């Protein structure tokens, strides 16, 4: 599979994503600069973490208006899988590709720690091969990860099953104590109504090798690959060899 990693000025987790997808998982990776106008030939897109454009104005606000986002929007509209990690999640929110907004952490601190999240929906490419309720262990590192959506929007998101991950304890219990940043209803990740665009604050790319303490994160990427393979088979089976 061919992953496109979008790189903005001040992205800083892009190398980690490239490493995991190319070296650990053995896929093709295209590094896509924020001024790029096209994502042609890419099977899935990752918006990595960092502080794109210095997080000026609001986290992700300027990046959400970058030229490449026109291509990301078109890619998402066509059903392509898009994953936003941390700052990438903030960018997707600011771009309106995902519902809600980020506030500063309620604890008034930048949180850099390891958390557990519970899989709340398997109806996305990145969670399709996981189990409902499965607990994943991944690191977080953010100052503005306090997910917020106004009442009616939150109700609609919940109703439509768009909450993909919730902060939980090691046993999978969604408790206030397991919430690192004040996110409403412990939301750690959401998806769009179609399910192909997913954003989460934890970093799967920093938890994709046993050596780093957890390899739960690679399950998200592997799930997307399986989803893409299934889709390709069903779409192009008669056209053997064509791409």
């Amino acid at each position, binding site marked *: 599979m061919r992953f496109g990693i979008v790189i903005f000025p001040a992205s800083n987790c892009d190398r980690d994503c490239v490493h995991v997808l190319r070296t650990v998982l053995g896929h093709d990776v295209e590094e896509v600069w924020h001024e790029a106008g096209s994502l042609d030939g890419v099977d899935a897109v990752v918006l990595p973490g960092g502080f794109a454009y210095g997080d000026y*104005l*609001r986290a992700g*606000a300027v990046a959400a*208006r970058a030229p490449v986002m026109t291509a990301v929007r078109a890619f998402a509209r066509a059903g392509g899988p898009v994953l936003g990690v941390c700052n990438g999640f903030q960018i997707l929110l*600011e771009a309106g590709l995902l519902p*809600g*907004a980020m*506030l*500063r*952490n*309620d*604890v*008034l601190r930048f949180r850099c720690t390891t958390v557990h999240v519970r899989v709340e929906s398997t109806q996305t490419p990145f969670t399709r091969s996981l189990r409902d309720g499965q607990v994943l262990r991944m690191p977080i590192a953010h100052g503005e990860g*306090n997910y*917020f*959506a*106004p009442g009616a*929007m939150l109700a609609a998101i919940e109703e439509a099953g768009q909450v993909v991950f919730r902060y939980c304890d090691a046993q999978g219990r969604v408790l206030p104590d397991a919430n690192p940043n*004040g996110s409403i209803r412990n939301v750690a990740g959401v998806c769009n109504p179609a399910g192909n665009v997913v954003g989460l604050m934890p970093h799967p790319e920093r938890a994709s090798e046993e050596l780093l303490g957890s390899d739960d994160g690679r399950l998200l990427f592997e799930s997307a690959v399986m989803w893409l393979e299934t889709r390709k088979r069903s779409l192009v089976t008669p056209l053997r060899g064509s791409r």
Partner: protein
Amino acid sequence: MATVRIVITLKPGVLDAQGQAVHQGLRALGYETVSGVRVGKCIEITVPDQTARDDIDAMCERFLANPLIEEWRIERDQDRDGTGRSRVPVLPRSQGS
């Protein structure tokens, strides 16, 4: 040309962690009577005099503010003489304490 000042704050009811931290700081300095602090941002844009209010609102709605969590107030600049500016001369912190 006119300078237009856009003051953006979090909507009432939206948690303002930064405001809370500043509130704690004021309390620590002994300003016990301060009962609330909201921190926002101020953006000054220079535009042609005849720029419509609707255009400025559109800039706020589409980019300068996030309407899900923020609201804004628009002020035309009538403050060119500087009378509304800070009355306290800028001093190094150490001289003030």
